[in-house]
Every structure is written in C-alpha cells, then in structure tokens.
C-alpha cells in the first residue's frame, strides 16, 4: 500500500481544498486549469521522466483531443462522450504513425521534430477556416453530461477535472509498477544496456509515447467542454514548452513532481498579475532560479531540503517519490 501513499495524500488535498475554501477563485477556477494541465504533465512525464525522451509537441495532442470534441459536437452534433472517444482514437492513430520515425531520433533532434510536429498541427487548426473556424476558433461547444448530471458550474468542473487527474495518476502508477515500468527505468538508465538485457526498447518507447499522447488528448477533450470555446492559440508551441517546463520544474521521474510543477506554473501568472509589466521578467527569473538552485526540480529539491527537519517522515516521502 506504501506506493499509493502519495496518491491518497493528493486525493485528500483535492477533496479538502474546496471544503476549506468553497468559493475561492483559486480553488474552483484555477484548480480546474491546474488539474487539466497536471493531467497532461503526468502523461508527458511518463515519456520524459521514465523513458528520457523529450516531446515539445504535446500541445498538439491536447489540441487534437480538444478539436475532435469541439468539431464533432458542434458541427455533427455528436454525443460528447463519443466525440471524446473519437478524439482518443484519432490521437492514438496519429501518435502511432509518427511515433516510429520520430522516436528513432535522439535528444535535440527529437525535440526539434516534436516541436515541428506541433507547429504543423497548429497550422492545420489555423488555416482551413471553413472547417476549424480558423484563429477565431470554435464557439458553443455543448456542456458535458455525466449520468444525467450537467457539468456546467465551476465546482462540478473541479470535481470532474480532478477526478480525471486522479484516474490519470492511478493509471500512471500502475504502469510504472508493472513490468513495462521496470523496463522503462532500464531505458532511461542506458538504452544500449537495456537492449542487451533483451528489452524491446523501440516497442516500449512507442507504447509510452502513445499513452502520454492519450493523456493529453483526454485532457484536451475535457478542456474543450470546460471552456465551451477553443482556438488555435491555446495549442501553440508555447503551451508545449510550458508543459515541458511544468514537468522539469516540478521534477521528473516522480508522479507528483509534474503535478506540483503544473500547480506552480499555472498559479504563477495568476499571482504575478499584480506586478503588471514586471510579470514577464519575474516569471523568467523564477524559472531560472529554480533550475539553478534545485536542478532536480521543486519536488525532489524541496523534499531534500525539508528532510533534515522531519528526519523520519521525510525519508519515506523521498522514497515514495520514486513510485
């Protein structure tokens, strides 16, 4: 049960937050954005943290999910759930097709290729105006309904988005602790080494890439319904980079680091708005500062710093970081 300790703590925080602050903008509104970003980040971390592959194109998968839901529900009046499934199917296909050639690339070449992929998808959202609505986007995306329950208020979205996040974390935990997970860690350690041990690296990398794309697409579909409006600006390469920053800032190779990173990076602009024109400068300085002083990310970095304070407890929490 130990490996799920972090999961239960996370669930507890998610449940308690709106009870303590029932009408707080930062919980019920920003909390939804955090949860959706975190869901993508957890998926991306499977790829980055456990296989050591970078993707600067995950906003594209997020966007494919969102546009599938948006287009199918508005233009063809599909049921949102079928649209969501279709979004996952399309993402699965796209990811499967590009994964093979793209994952043969290494390091910065992979970064560039995924970045390029993201930009191409974004142009495909902008240009065919008659289909996608172009830069003005798609409006009037209908409300999501779960078992007769309309998801149309902030608090309901809080529950759905965070429920999705918990589901995602649960899946990720199980994946990591499965046999694939073991193989994964081997890949990150040394690809050649793992290969010699008889691990079929290519297949595993592709599978993880697809899984992480599906995480993003799922979050994207929810995002489309939550916003009721989508436009290509929300899925540009800026967002891809933001996602990578969330993962790295929070700390890779822990399931909770990226969630922490997503929370920090989503909250920062919300709190920095008071600095007006200084906002951009401060955001950049904070990013640099964290990476210079806590190169392993906030999660690992902070828990190591706090360790001496609560010696007994902290040892176990650092251990759980691995799981």
């Amino acid at each position, binding site marked *: 049960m130990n490996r799920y300790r972090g999961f239960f703590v996370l669930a507890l925080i998610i449940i308690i937050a709106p009870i303590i602050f029932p009408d707080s903008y930062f919980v019920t509104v920003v909390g939804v954005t955090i949860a959706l970003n975190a869901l993508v980040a957890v998926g991306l971390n499977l790829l980055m943290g456990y296989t050591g592959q970078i993707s600067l194109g995950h906003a594209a998968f997020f966007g494919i999910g969102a546009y599938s839901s948006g287009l199918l529900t508005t233009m063809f009046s599909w049921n949102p759930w079928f649209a969501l499934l279709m979004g996952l199917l399309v993402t699965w296909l796209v990811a499967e097709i590009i994964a093979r050639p793209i994952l043969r690339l290494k390091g910065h070449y992979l970064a560039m290729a995924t970045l390029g992929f993201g930009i191409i998808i974004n142009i495909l959202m902008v240009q065919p105006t008659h289909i996608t609505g172009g830069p003005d986007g798609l409006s009037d995306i209908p409300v999501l309904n779960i078992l007769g329950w309309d998801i149309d208020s902030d608090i309901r979205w809080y529950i759905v988005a965070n429920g999705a996040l918990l589901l995602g974390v649960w899946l990720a935990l199980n994946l990591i602790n499965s046999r694939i997970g073991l193989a994964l860690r081997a890949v990150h350690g040394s690809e050649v080494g793992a290969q010699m041990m008889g691990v079929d690296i290519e297949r595993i990398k592709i599978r993880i890439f697809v899984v992480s794309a599906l995480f993003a697409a799922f979050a994207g579909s929810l995002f489309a319904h939550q916003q009721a409006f989508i436009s290509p600006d929300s899925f540009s390469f800026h967002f891809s980079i933001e996602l990578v920053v969330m993962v790295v800032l929070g700390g890779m190779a822990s399931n909770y680091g990226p969630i922490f990173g997503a929370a920090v990076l989503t909250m920062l602009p919300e709190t920095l708005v008071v600095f007006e024109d200084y906002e951009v400068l401060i955001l950049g300085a904070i990013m*640099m500062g964290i990476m210079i002083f806590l190169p392993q990310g906030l999660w690992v970095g902070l828990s190591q710093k706090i360790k001496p304070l609560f010696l007994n407890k902290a040892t176990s929490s650092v251990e759980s970081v691995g799981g």
Partner: protein
Amino acid sequence: MSDVLLQSLITGITIGSAYALVGLGFAIIFNVSDVVNFAQGEFVMVGAMSAVSLLAVGTPFVLALFLALIVVVCIGLILEKFAIEPAKSATVVSTIIITIGASIFLRGLALLIWGKDFHSLPAFSGETPIHLGSATITPQSLWVMGITAILVYLVHLFFNRTITGKALLACSANPIAASLIGIPVKRMMLFAYGLSALLGGAAGVLIAPIAFTSYDAGMMLGLKGFAAAILGGLGNPMGAVAGGVLLGVLESLGAGLISSGYKDAIAFVILLLVLFFKPQGFFGRAGEERV
C-alpha cells in the same frame, strides 16, 4: 512564374542568412556544452533594439551598430556566468529550462526598457531596389547576405586556423580530455556564449531594417535558428549555415509557389522528412552513445 521563383529565392536567401547566423550560434554553444540555448533568439532582439536606442540618442550609425553588438556580447557573457555556470550539476533538460527562463527574462527586461512598440532601423545604404529582370533586390538584402558570408567565413577560419578555435572544438569532442591537456574549459564556455551572442546580435541589426523589431521578436527567429541548426546537423557549425539558408529558401518558395498559408507547415514537413531519413541532419556527425 519564373520571376516569382527568382524573387522567392532572393527573399529566401536573405531571410535564410539571418536564420543561418542564429543557427550558427546554436551550433557553437551546442558544440562546447551540449546545450541548446533557447535564449539565442533574444540575442537577435537585443542587438536590434540596442541599435535602435543608440541611434535615437544620436550615436553615429556605424558606432551605434558596433556598440549594440558589444551590448549583446555582454548579455551573452552574463548569461553564461550567472545562469549556466552556476548550474553545472544540472542535466541537459534542466539547462534547457534555464535558457528558456533566460529568454523569458530577457523579453521581460526588453519590455520594460523598450516598451511594446515595433521599431525599425534605417537601411544601411538607402532603399532604392536593384532590378534583376522583373525581380528586385534591396541593398539591405545584399548587406545581409554579404556580411553573413563574411562572418561565416571568419568563424570557419577561427575553428580551423586558430588555437582557440581548435581548443573550442576539442571541448566539444571530449571536455574531460580537453581540460586534462590544459584547455580552460570554463573560459571556452564563456567564449562560446560571447561568440554566439555576437552572431545573434549581428543578425538582429542586419535584419531589423527589413523586418522591424519588437521586444518579442526574438522567439520566432530563435525557433527558426534552432530548426536551421538541426537541419544542418548540430555538430557541424557550417551545417547550421547551410540549414539556415535552406530553411529560408524552403519557406519563401513554399509561399511563392505553393501556398502562403501553409508555408511554415511545408518547411517543417520537409524538416521532419529530412530527419526521418537523416536522423543527424544533413551534415551531422553520427552520434555514439555511452553505455
């Protein structure tokens, strides 16, 4: 159609030259430290903006350009000294995030100093276009191509003919061995950042009379420069130059002959195809991996 082709080529080579200088900067830093410096585009912006400001306070033109380059080099050195060097224990990915942070920081700084307006520099020698059949070329385009060619040649000589240049290449091949034979790796890093900042700044002042500049102009040029470096192959500085020109030409041919709406998509599709068939770019060295 042939005049469209010719015009697209001229445009492509001009813009490609700017990409080439930025890409060259990427390749140099990558060679020394395995880091892709995402603040490279910001060097371009700072160069152009500084020149604009210096001209506005009445500095003579040539002196203003020269001083602007010095400003950029200083920024490059400060970046290395205070952001890259202290983070030596950081992984490559963390270092990338640092440079992304640095680029956001520089953009924020530029926003405070120069505001949000677009600015332009006067062309170096007038704006009367030169006619080549039905196509035209501006004097500034010639300046961009000419100075880029000279800078690239100088960088080439530097790497092949000078001790410092060779030492720089040695750092990239094997930093530990380099330091063992007495090459000051730390100082080499500093030097690499200064040099690529200089190249970025030069691209900035060259292109500003054509494309204008604003506090957020760096990001797109940085992205294109990165693409140029990758297309050519990261390990090879001259590859980045070829990659830059190629990318510029692809974009403008795409716009002129196929579809201007999809021109960036066309350029990136070709980039992906190149990578699928040549995973190390056109001129990249084959990577060997440590077990």
